[in-house]
């Protein structure tokens, strides 16, 4: 029988009674928390969970509020994308090996999906994996890989059969980032910093035991990962909001106010409030067990609002908007929209409509899956990948 909130609360208290974070090493505490099933309660027992309902996680987080956490911002890709995929498609051995150090943050994960020639059309990717006995030999180039320079492991999609249409010839792997032939180079972006990397894979040998799912089933496995990515990007809770920052500046600096800016700010304030209410309503739907298609709207709305607001902020600041806080070629561990100045926010927000599915692709998805409109005619549907024009 599934546990209720009271039972989960009891487990938390029992755990705290036996594990005093003040007297324990941080990592030992996190490992013990995982072993007690209090890492992610909706995961199965033995894998950091209790097989409980997902919303009971809040009970755990409340109970363990003042204890060391696993720095979720640093291991977001592991938590948000690799873990659900490993849980859904991994063997028992893979789940046992990877999930615990993933959750404690001992092992950082990154994602090797996008390529210079495969962005929105991810399924056309060209990184090859060729079987040699019990091993796969991987060659190719991946891009837009955050955390690759810290990562111990990666989730990787590679082409194992070029003779079938593009979606069918893919296989999903766990890539050992310490294996010979893996080279990580920072990719500097328009903000000046490098959140992301390019990853070159040259003759990288991966044992077959690192394959996730069946050979040729990589596209289906990747869908699980990508679905979780969009939820993570659209639904990330924020301590401070962009509208909060812009409104505070507006209130504290009367000399910046003009009628034209005022009208635009009022409109964006309404848009921000409507986006907030939409998120409130979405959470209510999820809690009631009726997830609606509104989820796919969240990222699209978020991107547009962020871009408009950050653009307004720079313009509103006039001379201060001509300044930029820091062009250093830094390698930040997390994206910190609010800790930087307006110019940074403006530039970084440009990525919101590109990363994790462009706004154009999301509109296609809404049009086809929510509204049921006919798909575009596909020229590449029944053509072997190797014969596609490129």
């Amino acid at each position, binding site marked *: 029988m599934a546990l209720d909130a009271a039972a989960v609360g009891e487990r938390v208290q029992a755990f705290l009674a036996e594990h005093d974070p003040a007297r324990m090493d941080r990592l030992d505490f996190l490992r013990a928390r995982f072993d007690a099933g209090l890492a992610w309660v909706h995961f199965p027992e033995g894998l950091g969970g209790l097989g409980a309902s997902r919303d009971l996680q809040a009970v755990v987080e409340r109970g363990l509020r003042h204890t060391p956490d696993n720095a979720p911002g640093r291991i977001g890709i592991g938590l948000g994308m690799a873990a659900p995929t490993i849980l859904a498609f991994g063997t028992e051995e893979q789940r046992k090996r990877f999930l615990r150090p993933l959750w404690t943050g001992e092992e950082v994960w990154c994602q090797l999906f996008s390529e210079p020639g495969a962005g929105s059309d991810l399924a056309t990717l060209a990184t090859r994996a060729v079987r040699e006995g019990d091993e796969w030999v991987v060659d190719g180039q991946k891009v837009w890989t955050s955390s690759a320079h810290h990562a111990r492991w990666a989730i990787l999609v590679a082409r194992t059969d070029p003779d079938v249409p593009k979606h069918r010839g893919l296989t999903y792997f766990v890539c050992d980032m310490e294996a010979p032939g893996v080279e990580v180079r920072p990719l500097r972006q328009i903000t000046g910093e490098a959140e992301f990397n390019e990853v070159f894979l040259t003759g990288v040998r991966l044992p077959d035991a690192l394959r996730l799912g069946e050979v040729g089933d990589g596209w289906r496995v990747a869908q699980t990962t990508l679905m979780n990515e969009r939820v993570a990007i659209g639904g990330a809770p924020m301590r401070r909001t962009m509208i909060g920052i812009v409104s505070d500046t507006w209130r504290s600096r009367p000399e910046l106010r003009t009628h034209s800016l005022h009208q635009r700010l009022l409109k964006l304030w309404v848009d921000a409030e409507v986006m907030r209410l939409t998120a409130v*309503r979405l959470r209510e739907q999820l809690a009631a067990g009726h997830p609606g298609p509104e989820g796919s709207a969240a990222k699209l709305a978020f991107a547009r609002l962020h871009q408009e607001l950050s653009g307004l902020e720079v313009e509103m600041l006039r001379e201060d908007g001509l300044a930029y806080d820091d062009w250093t070629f830094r390698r930040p561990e997390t994206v910190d929209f609010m800790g930087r100045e307006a110019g940074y926010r403006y530039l970084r927000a440009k990525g919101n409509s590109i990363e994790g599915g462009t706004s154009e692709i*999301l509109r296609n998805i809404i049009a086809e899956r929510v509204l049921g409109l006919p798909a575009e005619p596909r020229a590449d549907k029944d053509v072997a990948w190797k014969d596609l024009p490129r």
Partner: protein
Amino acid sequence: MSEPASLLYSEVEEELRSAVRGLLADKCPPSAVLARAEAASGGDVPYDMDLWKTLARDIGVAGLLVPESLGGAGASAREAAVVMEELGRAVAPVPFLSSAVLATRALLGAGEEAGDLLERLASGETTAALAVSFAASPYVPLYLSLRPAVTLGRDGTLTGRVTGVVGAEVADVLVVPAVDESAQEGGEPVLCVVEAAHARVKGVGSLDLTRPIATVSFAGAPARRAGTSAGVRDALLLAAGLLASEQLGVAEWCLTTTVSYVKERKQFARPVGSFQAIKHRLADLWLELVGARAAARNAAALLGAGADAGVAVAVAQAYCGTAAVHAAEECVQLHGGIGMTWEHPAHLYLKRAKADEIALGTPGDHREALTWLADLPAPES
């Protein structure tokens, strides 16, 4: 900020919706509304009073906002909002907003003298209209929007003229805020009740064929004092909040109808709905409607809970007013030539959406109200 009540629809609300929707599907299909609009374009009154009686009495929508002690359902703005959504979806020509919301709410704020009239309104036996312009904004003080004023003379009769009134053609009684000549200068207007037979109601050629406006004139009309006009501003705010739900219903019909059409309509040997230029516009419109529903529900929930709904109404009106017009304009455009014809019902929705945008404060009025409601001060000069 925390929400006092759910933004989802309750079971009771869904039952009410399906009762209203079922009746409208049966008695108020687009062809019937088109016929009434046709008559209205020739100067007739478009309202379907048989339909209204069924809605008002059998389903009980007339008494939704009236307390049980006065024979009403004692329901809240949440239920009224669901009715508004369905009426919007059908552009139903019935005086729900004018009688069961505007006039009823104004009377509820008037005082005990209004009790027996409220009972008759709740039962659906009597229909009323509030003699205030439909273009009045809840943010403009009533004494300003009443100029030139209707006055209550010392002899107890009303004199004056009000323009832009909705629902007056089919009202049995008119609820009229008036300047009391026997009171001191600058005092709050009083609320009077006048039998419609004693007033002159003259229809005006109207943009919205399914909810036209009229000019109401009084020339020594015998009037009864119903109390203070304190409820009129609340009535305008409530109606503005509920109008967001009507706008949501209008927009939903437009989106659904357009999506069906572009799936069927073929040009260049493809359904036009398979072109990205069309798909992306409809995806954006859907996104706007998702937001409109959250905003309209939030306004209804706060109004229903008796909480301070100022920000919620302003946000809902600023957003939904624009969304409905956008949806109706996309509906006409994406239907191509057929969308421009009199025989297709799209124009009824466009006219309703555009009139609704002006009604009870424009989106700009509601945005500007956030200057003080949300502390976003305007420039000094």
